[in-house]
């Protein structure tokens, strides 16, 4: 048994009702490395992680962990072995304090059986000191940001003696600054001998954080490589299995007159005196940290919340937007940042989701829906956007992230907006689908639409936008033309 490997998986296969999710894959992780697992949605990453965390049992194959052969029976068993998983959806108790969350199930007690709060706080502080985390152990978890919550979860895993930490899309909802902090902590923990499996769609960060990468495609093992020997282009090609000409295909569009104008828009302390205009055919990017007021601005323009001050104009006409329905009627649509909670009804079919905003187009007498017209319109959109679904009757919740996002786009496009607001349009979407979404955005502006695009991914903002606004603390602090923007300059103003 080669001792420099902490985890060795060989010949692992897993079927779900006849479909091979994993086909005879191998996966080897060295002690003390950050090993990235990458692949498109459906490549089998999640299945492998679920096998490691004891949620699924593999059909065939062997797992060798920490020098001995194991069959992982249950999540509890995985935990006992020292395998911890930090999921996208965090497993914390929001109303309890940080220290309670870390020691839940094994809170220190006094002889009388009462919780020893003093000792609990001290133990937590000791742990945080060791890990280099600066969070007050007595604050409640719900008052923390996503990044801090992740740290709490990592701390909990490590306090339970985890040797291997699996991070599933840890930075998907973090701003650049928060992600940097997370990377620092991961690097520090790595120096202390902790091993990480790191799953992400954001390939750029791998060059910063990972030591080695393993690529899966369609349930098969493709390759393991040192990250130092890889280029970005190569990673993408390994994942997709074909050459991608360009990831951010900027469509050249003749810009028209200003269509949409915002004057001195304010809302409480969230947005302060924001003014800008967008031209026909233009993509205006908004960059900034999470909490800079970007999403608040989008919600305000779309009528989810109301501004306390300021005016909004479309084609020189002032708009009154009190609710999303008003915005949609005036030609403003939003692709929200959280597609599962704001964009889609997961329990409903692809068809019903796509037609939800435009049901009035299919109205017959007595409010009945013209089923033929609805289904024809939806079929058309599904074909045009190349949404991969067995049928339009499929529940949206069963589609992959990329296809779910395309369903949201189909829904907004059908409402025929003049201005499309995009809030993190490619979050949690694989590279292939990402390129397609970028192509859709390009087509939209080519036909004369205007786009306001919020994104935490700097390459995306810089690749797609004609102009870039940088927001910080609710204000627009800088405007860049496409040609002037660099990552460093944007970050300088965002921080």
């Amino acid at each position, binding site marked *: 048994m080669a001792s420099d490997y902490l985890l060795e998986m060989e010949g692992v296969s897993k079927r779900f*009702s006849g479909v091979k999710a994993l086909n005879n894959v191998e996966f080897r992780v060295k002690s003390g490395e950050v090993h990235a697992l990458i692949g498109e949605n459906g490549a089998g990453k999640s299945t492998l992680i679920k096998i490691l965390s004891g949620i699924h049992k593999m059909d065939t194959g062997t797992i060798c962990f920490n020098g001995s052969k194991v069959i992982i029976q249950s999540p509890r068993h995985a935990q006992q072995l020292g395998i911890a998983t930090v999921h996208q959806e965090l497993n914390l108790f929001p109303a309890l304090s940080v220290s309670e969350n870390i020691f839940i199930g094994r809170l220190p007690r006094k002889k009388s059986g009462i919780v020893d709060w003093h000792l609990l706080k001290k133990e937590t502080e000791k742990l945080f000191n060791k890990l280099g985390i600066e969070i007050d152990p007595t604050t409640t978890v719900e008052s923390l940001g996503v990044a801090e919550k992740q740290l709490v979860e990592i701390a909990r895993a490590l306090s339970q003696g985890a040797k291997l930490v699996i991070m599933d899309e840890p930075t998907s909802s973090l701003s650049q600054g928060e992600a940097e902090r997370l990377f620092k902590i991961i690097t520090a923990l790595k120096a202390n001998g902790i091993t990480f499996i790191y799953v992400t769609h954001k390939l750029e960060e791998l060059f910063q954080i990972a030591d080695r990468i393993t690529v899966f495609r369609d349930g098969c093992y493709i390759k393991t490589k040192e990250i130092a020997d890889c280029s970005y282009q190569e990673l993408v090609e390994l994942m997709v299995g074909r050459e991608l000409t360009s990831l951010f295909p900027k469509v050249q569009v003749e810009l028209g007159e200003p269509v949409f104008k915002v004057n001195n828009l304010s809302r409480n302390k969230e947005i302060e005196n924001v003014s800008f205009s967008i031209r026909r055919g233009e993509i205006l990017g908004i960059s900034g940290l999470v909490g800079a007021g970007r999403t608040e601005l989008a919600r305000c323009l*779309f009528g*989810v919340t109301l501004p306390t001050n300021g005016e909004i104009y479309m084609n020189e006409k002032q708009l009154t937007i009190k609710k*999303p329905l008003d915005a949609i009627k005036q030609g403003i649509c939003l692709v929200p940042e959280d597609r599962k*909670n704001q964009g889609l*009804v997961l329990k*409903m079919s692809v068809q019903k989701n796509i037609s939800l*905003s435009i049901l009035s187009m299919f109205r017959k007498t007595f409010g009945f829906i013209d089923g033929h017209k609805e289904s024809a319109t939806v079929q058309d959109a599904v074909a045009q956007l190349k949404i991969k679904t067995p049928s339009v009757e499929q529940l949206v919740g069963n589609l992959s992230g990329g296809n779910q996002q395309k369903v949201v786009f189909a*829904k907004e496009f059908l409402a025929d907006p003049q201005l499309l607001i995009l809030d993190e349009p490619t979050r949690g979407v694989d590279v292939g689908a990402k390129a397609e979404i970028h192509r859709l955005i390009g087509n939209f502006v080519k036909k004369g639409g205007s786009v306001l695009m919020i994104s935490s991914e700097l390459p995306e903002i810089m690749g797609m936008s004609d102009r870039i606004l940088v927001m910080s603390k609710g204000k627009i602090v800088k405007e860049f033309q496409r040609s002037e923007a660099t990552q460093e300059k944007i970050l300088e103003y965002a921080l």
Partner: protein
Amino acid sequence: MKKTFFQKYGILIIFLLLCLVLSFLSPVFLSIPNLINVVRQISINGILAIGMTLVILTGGIDLSVGSQVALTGAIVAGLQAHGQGAFLAVIVGLLLGAFLGCINGLIITKGGLPPFIVTLGMLTAARGLTLIYTGGRPIYDLSKAFNFIGAGYLGSIPIPVIILTLVLLVSHFVLKYTIFGREVYAVGGNPEASVYSGINKEKRLVQVYTIMGFLSGLTGIVLTSRLGSADPTAGVGFELDAITAVVIGGTSMFGGEGAVTGTLIGALIIGVINNGLNLLNVSSYYQQVVKGVIVVGAVLMDNYARKKQQKISE
């Protein structure tokens, strides 16, 4: 995801099995008069449960239906006792029910309170109003025309059964084929996303609670007519029977999933159990135990089939 046969028709199969068992245990069970009797008995709960399905589809609950039944029943009877005609009394009863439901809906949406709390308040308040209005005594003196609603027949079919059938058909088509129906499912399936999709969520909720109130009023009329009097304590516990039928019928308590056809079968299962136990001369104390066990058992079986299906499709 394809639904398996059992998943789609599970609760119907359970219902048919139950009928089969009862037909062996009691020769009377399958006779036409008995079956009509069963359906007539469930018509009261059936109408309420259909309204409750709408409410639960939006992710809400209405605990006040029993009290609404009592209050509308009392007013409808009181109007007639004071010499008003049956027609006017019925119209007032329906409007009163709709009004009570509308108040529920408005407080839930404008006041931003959970439906559980609001309708719990209405349950108590409406019951109180009933007692005040009746002075705690039943009201008799109903008109002949009015009695026809609960006791009359069209051919060999009791009027309450016809009313139930109409309510079922209308609600089924409205939920399945209208914009209103689609939006009810969306609001229950994901309230936030439905607002982002431009749906007027508050309007839909008020409409749903108003329909629930209207159907409570209708139930109050049918019940009062059938009993020949309005009892101030009528309708106690009706909300639980209605919710039970909805849940057995496979509608999710979290909202967004379910159908009124399932609810009807749920109501039928409860009715058949009641009827069967009566035919078998089971004491009413034991009846409650058996009913409880069968209700939970039916939902368990249904749930088990769904979960199994979900696991496979993951």
